[in-house]
């Protein structure tokens, strides 16, 4: 019952996005600001984590393969595939659910509580379109970009860690990375990135926009936004894998 009510309200929020902007330049300005916050401000954390995930997987695969007769170039291949198919989109999404999701939910929650959203409505601005729209556009462009970079950096991390582990040479690693390049997997990565961005931003906007009560509730709303986004990202990850693989 309760979840049906929330799904309905969530759908209504999404429907509220489809209105003509009052003034395009204002929406564009807001979108740029959001692109900065969602994209640029998240770069460092995403890249550091992608680098180490690539590095750790390379070392661990290399260690495991060393016990077998499998050629060492497989390390490069496996790191590449797992970065593209899983780690880059999913781990980036989980990090951003925490960083961007909580940010958005508490920003909108505060705006709700301090009547800033009411102030927009009173002026005759469509508050859903103006507040949620730019965040969605910004996320749908910036997060897939971050994911692409994360994949590249992860593979780079694998290279550095792989050769410094002594198990394999740089040439072997690069051979592995270059072998069997499937464009389809890159497409899947992009689909995941887009779906995950949508989930994170729309869920966090929902939690923040409809927050009620006081500072305590904003805290709760932002925690819920993060938890729910993470769960939905993982479920969507599974569904995408199931549908396309």
């Amino acid at each position: 019952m309760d979840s049906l009510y929330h799904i309905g309200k969530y759908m209504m929020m999404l429907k509220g996005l489809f209105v003509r902007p009052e003034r395009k330049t204002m929406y564009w300005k807001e979108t740029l600001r959001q692109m900065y916050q969602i994209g640029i401000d998240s770069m460092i954390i995403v890249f550091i984590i992608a680098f180490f995930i690539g590095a750790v997987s390379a070392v661990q695969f290399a260690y495991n393969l060393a016990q077998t007769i499998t050629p060492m170039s497989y390390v490069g291949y496996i790191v590449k595939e797992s970065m593209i198919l899983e780690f880059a989109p999913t781990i980036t999404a989980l990090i951003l659910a925490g960083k961007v999701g909580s940010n958005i939910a508490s920003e909108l929650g505060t705006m709700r509580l301090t009547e800033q959203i009411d102030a927009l409505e009173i002026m005759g601005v469509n508050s859903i379109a103006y507040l949620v729209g730019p965040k969605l556009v910004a996320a749908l462009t910036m997060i897939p970009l971050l994911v692409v970079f994360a994949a590249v950096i992860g593979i780079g991390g694998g290279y550095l860690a792989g050769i410094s582990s002594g198990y394999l040479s740089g040439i072997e690693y690069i051979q592995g990375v270059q072998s069997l390049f499937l464009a389809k997997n890159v497409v899947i990565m992009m689909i995941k990135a887009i779906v995950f961005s949508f989930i994170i931003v729309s869920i966090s906007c929902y939690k923040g926009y409809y927050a009620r009560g006081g500072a305590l509730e904003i805290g709760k709303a932002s925690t819920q936004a993060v938890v729910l986004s993470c769960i939905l990202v993982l479920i969507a990850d599974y569904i995408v894998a199931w549908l396309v693989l």
Partner: protein
Amino acid sequence: MIELKDIQKSFDGAKVLKGVSSVFHPGQISLIIGKSGSGKSVLLKCMVGLLCPDNGSVLFNGEDFIAMNTKEKKNIHRSLGMLFQGNALFDSQTVEENVRFPLDMFTRLPLDEKRDRVNEVLKRVNLVNSNHKLPSEISGGMQKRVGIARAIVMTPKYLFCDEPNSGLDPQTSIVIDELIKDITEEYKMTTIVNTHDMNTVIANGDKILFLHQGQKHWEGNKDSLFETNNKELMDFIFASDFLREARAYRLGKTKK
């Protein structure tokens, strides 16, 4: 002119407004007074469309607001300004950007004309040299002024103020009251103010509506206030010894 007809509103079965009717005229300040929790904010929000009343109508110059379509409602919204209890300034924007926001959103004026207009209203509310500060960098009284400036920048026909004195010291409070009074007369606005501040009541009460237990319990002006025998109103207004003495003094003087 704004007319309220039989406004009713409940939340989860609890009746907050049980049928409130009244008329508010241009060029004067109408005060809605009542205890905390008596439904003042709910009534104001019903008037401006932030809440939808369960029953009754709100007429702006004779036209039923609640029955309007979205576009007509937006037009009404563009002709009204509102000062919120907590000011509701956009905290990521500077003073100037806050005040300019409605102009940016709804007009196609060039930037320097918009700036001129912003400076004009900021000067009107006596707030100069703060254009580039953030709301968090200025005092509560200054934030109020920014709130007022933003509310009047589009020269509205209607001004709504929810507890404009809350959180202000008595002196600043009086200055804000005078400012609201002056701009109401200057812009010929229909101004409606929620308050429980007795200084405001005595200074600005061209028309006073007393809300009690969800109903309009009394209606009048600041002069008839002193002569009322309405028990609940007297308990509310003359709650302090000081005000009781003031009333006794004033009544004694008018009898002579």
